[in-house]
């Protein structure tokens, strides 16, 4: 059952033009890496690598791709009414959530993680610790993909304005407010993603969150988002047509 919905969602996401835009967005760090290489060897390539991967991939590319695919996985179907073909079926709602999360999260990871790895390796891969940094950010991007998508998916079930809410969360909360206070960082997917990279490559990546907060926060965020998405999907009411 999960596989059927997963395949349907993947086809649905890939059939849209915005998926091509997301591919281009995911490839943008690779373009930066090419420019860095063309500009000549920097003094500390691994520092540049960390800056590009954290600044461009984790802060911008990952949340944007996850936002578009995460809200598109369920939100678009609820919007155009095709979701009725899933909802009016004897399927436990958690299976629908799981399939949607696997499809959109998997697709986000498939777009972002390889681009992260290639970008990292191109900039600092041949330096001491540079390869490890690239792998760390690529793996962190995989976890971050599922984490972001789970939250945006839940938002898209709850409201038709999930795209705006997602943008506000990413730009305003994660971009501005979460960085201002130490406590608020613990409610930021971006910080969890960097935290995971820091756990894998501690010698070059110095996250703001400690490993325990990172692991606990990641787990709690994922579980809460999936539970809420499932619950809201179970209570979803078709919008008034008349």
């Amino acid at each position, binding site marked *: 059952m999960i596989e059927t919905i997963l395949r349907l969602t993947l086809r649905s996401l890939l059939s849209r033009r915005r998926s091509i835009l997301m591919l281009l967005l995911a490839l943008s760090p690779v373009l930066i890496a090419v420019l860095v290489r063309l500009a000549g060897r920097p003094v500390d390539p691994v520092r540049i690598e960390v800056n590009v991967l954290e600044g461009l991939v984790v802060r911008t590319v990952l949340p944007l791709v996850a936002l578009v695919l995460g809200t598109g996985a369920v939100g678009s179907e609820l919007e155009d009414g095709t979701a009725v073909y899933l909802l009016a079926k*004897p399927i436990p*709602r958690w299976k629908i959530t799981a399939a949607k999360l696997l499809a959109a999260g998997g697709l986000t990871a498939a777009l972002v993680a390889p681009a992260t790895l290639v970008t990292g390796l191109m900039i600092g891969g041949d330096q001491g610790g540079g390869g490890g940094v690239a792998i760390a950010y690529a793996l962190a991007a995989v976890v971050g993909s599922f984490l972001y998508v789970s939250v945006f998916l839940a938002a898209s079930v709850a409201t038709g304005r999930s795209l705006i809410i997602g943008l506000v969360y990413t730009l305003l909360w994660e971009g501005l407010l979460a960085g201002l206070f130490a406590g608020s960082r613990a409610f930021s997917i971006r910080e969890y993603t960097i935290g995971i990279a820091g756990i894998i490559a501690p010698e070059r990546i110095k996250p703001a969150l400690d490993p325990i907060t990172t692991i606990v926060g990641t787990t709690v965020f994922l579980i809460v988002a999936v539970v809420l998405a499932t619950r809201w999907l179970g209570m979803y009411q078709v919008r008034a047509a008349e």
Partner: protein
Amino acid sequence: MGERPTAPRAADPTVGYPPPPAAESPPPPAAVAVPAALVDPSVTILVDHVSRWYGNVVAVNDVSIALRPGITGLLGPNGAGKTTILNMAAGLLRPSAGSVTVLGAPAWRNPATYRRIGLVPEREAVYPFLTGREFVRLNAKLQGLADPDGATRTAIHTVDLDAAADRAVGTYSKGMRQRVKVAAALVHEPQVLLLDEPFNGMDPRQRLHMMELLTGMAREGRTILFSSHILEEVERLAQSVLVIVAGRLAASGNFRDIRRLMTDRPHTFTIHSSDNRRLAAALLERDPVFGVELADGLLTVRSADYAAFTRLVAGVARDTSVTLYELRPTDESLESVFQYLVAR
């Protein structure tokens, strides 16, 4: 709207489940007698004192319906609340008050009942990137059928869509889209089939075919509830009719009873002629005419029989040497017919 009409009752398929007393004075819950429909095992869809509102807008107002196997038409003008009722029966909308039970189980938040319910939604959207066959097979798989391919073949053949089954749904005409939606809804051979405006966009041949199909399914003992704003569709297909106007159940029962209610109402015509006064006097002597009114150079005539009056008027004008310039029935729209039923 005023008082609730005394709705005619029929044996099939809506069962005797009298409408509740006026909404202004609901009986205390403890005093509610359990209607026969609540314990009647042959009742497949039970809508019990259901209301649904959106903010301040009341979409469905204290509707009670009990259906047995057979075809029931949900007739009413656009915006009357038909889709809201069907969505509540399909468990896709929570009633604001009252309850909806399908095959003995609550409709709301009960996915397991979809094993026995098929739904054809009004909205046209179907995954455009799938072929018709893939779409029907998807529904078969989501229903967990043992042989999704076989069920898909049967359903596609049933709606006569074999030739176009391997084309993308995005390329389908409106009528083909409706048919593929019907195929998807009956792929698991449900006991209850809910269809929202199923004939929209179908040509007369497809319409006839779909009617035969639904009649056959009803004969197999299934409960079919479909909505329509077109009287003739309901007349040709439904054994029983529920008339919904402005969110209320205006009348229910056998189509002939509803039809009689509609045709027996007074009809009004406005006439512009060379001598309205003389024509009025002559018409008033005739049987089907029971009222005339002269105002603003126009003659308004009220008649009990639409057809008899239209046959009569030309002859009377000729006999009295009056020239008819214009004869117009006023407000013969279906909406006004419905309004009349509610106001009775």
